[in-house]
């Protein structure tokens, strides 16, 4: 089977100018590289402020990169109608995507006007109903209602349905489940799993590690803008190598077991193996950054 990179980030950096007259620079994303293949879910995890949303926004062309490059299906990010036909984002707060004075299903109407003006009305209505059913909503229950009459979970799933009406190849899902309760969350996750099976590439941004592992083939752990560990999900979670990954995992509340302290990292794989360029390859495909142990003498920049 041919698996090609749908999304590729190569040494991507983003600095924001902040303060009066943009006098100070904040590096939100620092030389980040990873890729997502067609039919694959990659989860991007890290605490708040680690740069996850900034990466998502750069992929969607909502903010430019400061350095490095992002390509989608081999071509650079080019915001515009054709780009958004195949690349879409769904964000944490579904309410912000709807205009409260219009009915919620106007989001579908806008898609038709922009991308499918030639499709006859009745055929379009049938497509909308099918997409709404695909996200496990009852069309009769959600269509024709105003945003405030729908729950966060319903609005969130309608945004996914909207994305389904396009010829989508890459979906950036940024914390889309944090507003949902457990049962609805599972529905949304299973839906993403089905889309993945149909060949969609998904970048799943989350701070909920359990949800991340459930779906993703591969996981990227972000810490203060840099990748500290990435690799196959089983390895990153089953055999976490970086102290930060271990701390994150230890903090996850478990239903059937108490919190435990993170196991200590005693030696720095990065410096032990003498790797260069940010990450050491511990096992094939499993990369880890310098552990930043207290006695670290090496160059960690």
């Amino acid at each position: 089977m041919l698996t090609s990179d749908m999304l590729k980030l190569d040494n991507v950096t983003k600095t924001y100018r902040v303060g009066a007259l943009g006098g100070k620079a904040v590096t939100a994303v620092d030389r980040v590289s990873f890729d997502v293949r067609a039919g694959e879910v990659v989860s991007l995890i890290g605490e708040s402020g680690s740069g996850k949303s900034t990466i998502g926004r750069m992929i969607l062309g909502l903010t430019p990169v400061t350095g490095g490059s992002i390509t989608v299906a081999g071509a650079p990010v080019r915001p515009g109608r054709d780009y958004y036909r195949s690349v879409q984002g769904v964000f944490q707060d579904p309410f912000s995507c709807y205009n409260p004075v219009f009915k919620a299903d106007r989001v579908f109407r806008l898609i038709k006007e922009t991308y499918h003006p030639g499709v006859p009305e009745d055929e379009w209505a049938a497509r909308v109903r099918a997409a709404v059913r695909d996200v496990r909503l009852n069309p009769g229950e959600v269509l024709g209602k105003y945003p405030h009459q729908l729950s966060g979970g319903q609005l969130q799933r309608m945004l996914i349905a909207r994305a389904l009406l396009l010829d989508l190849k890459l979906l950036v899902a940024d914390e889309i489940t944090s507003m949902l309760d457990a049962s609805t969350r599972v529905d949304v996750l299973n839906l993403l799993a089905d889309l993945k099976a149909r060949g969609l590439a998904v970048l799943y941004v989350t701070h909920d590690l359990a949800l991340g592992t459930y779906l993703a083939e591969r996981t990227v752990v972000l810490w203060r803008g840099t990748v500290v560990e990435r690799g196959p999900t089983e390895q990153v979670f089953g055999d976490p190598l970086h102290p930060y990954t271990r701390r994150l995992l230890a903090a996850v509340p478990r239903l059937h077991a108490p919190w435990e302290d993170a196991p200590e990292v005693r030696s720095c794989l990065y410096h032990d193996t003498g790797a260069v360029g940010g990450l050491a390859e511990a096992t094939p495909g499993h990369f880890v950054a310098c552990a930043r142990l207290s006695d670290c003498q090496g160059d960690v920049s």
Partner: protein
Amino acid sequence: MSLTVTDLRVSYQTLRGEVRALDGVSFTVADGEILGLAGESGCGKTTLGKSLIRLDGRMRHAGGTVELDGRELPIADDRAMNAFRFREVSLVPQYSMSALNPTRKIGRMVAELLRSRGETPDRAKLESRLAQVGLPREVLDRYPIELSGGMRQRVVMVISTLLDPSLLIADEITSALDVSTQQAVARALLGFRDAGHVTSMVFITHDLALTARIADTIMVMYAGRLAEKAPAEVLVEQPRHPYTRLLVNALPEVGARHAGRRLTGIAGSPPSLLDPPPGCRFRERCPLADDGCAEQPPVTEVAPGHHVACWKV
């Protein structure tokens, strides 16, 4: 016995009629106990929390009583409740992180709040409480926007418990936080209980795993009623109510993979509370439902401290 709620009924007045958000809920919380309150969105968690503090304009106390440390709370009487708020019962509301006044430095805000309650600000006590939740005293000189979500959440927690209330209600205070911050806040809550800054607590969340880590007892609500209440471990390991069982199964554990076992959500959605159907409210979605469930199941104590509202247990 710290808190005793008996057959509490609270509804919202809307143009289309009365939304019966709490429809006969009874439970107790003992001294020193942390009660975790869980359930799907819309099941009445926030309504229950608000009922113990302040009914907003459209809420109506339709029946039942609330007793705190042997005294009945005048929940329908907004002014009479003033004597209890903050001192006896305190609430950290859902979305409180964004509710801090953005134009006031934290320190000044706390001082104003205390004075409005006729109390003198005690700087030393405030700083020691902040230290207990891992915040430097410098936060008092900062504006809310200068703090991260987790810091703000802890500030609100400290403020709400300054007068050592008997009962603290924490509504979804950790849901927007990342796991490390969530753990820190949860541990701070436990610390406050252990130090006696609050006697008991109602911890509202839809994250069952987190509740299981900090609550002594968990109560699961469904569509305005109690479904099951049991010691935390019993509820998680041996749930008896069909709804609780599905809820527990809907949770992925870290390391669980979709490829290994597809988790199942709970098909369907809760009934409308405008004109809820008679009988068991879970009937439409319950895999065990039969004709008998057309009648409302009573809450029965199936083992000491384990209450279930279902005909099939």
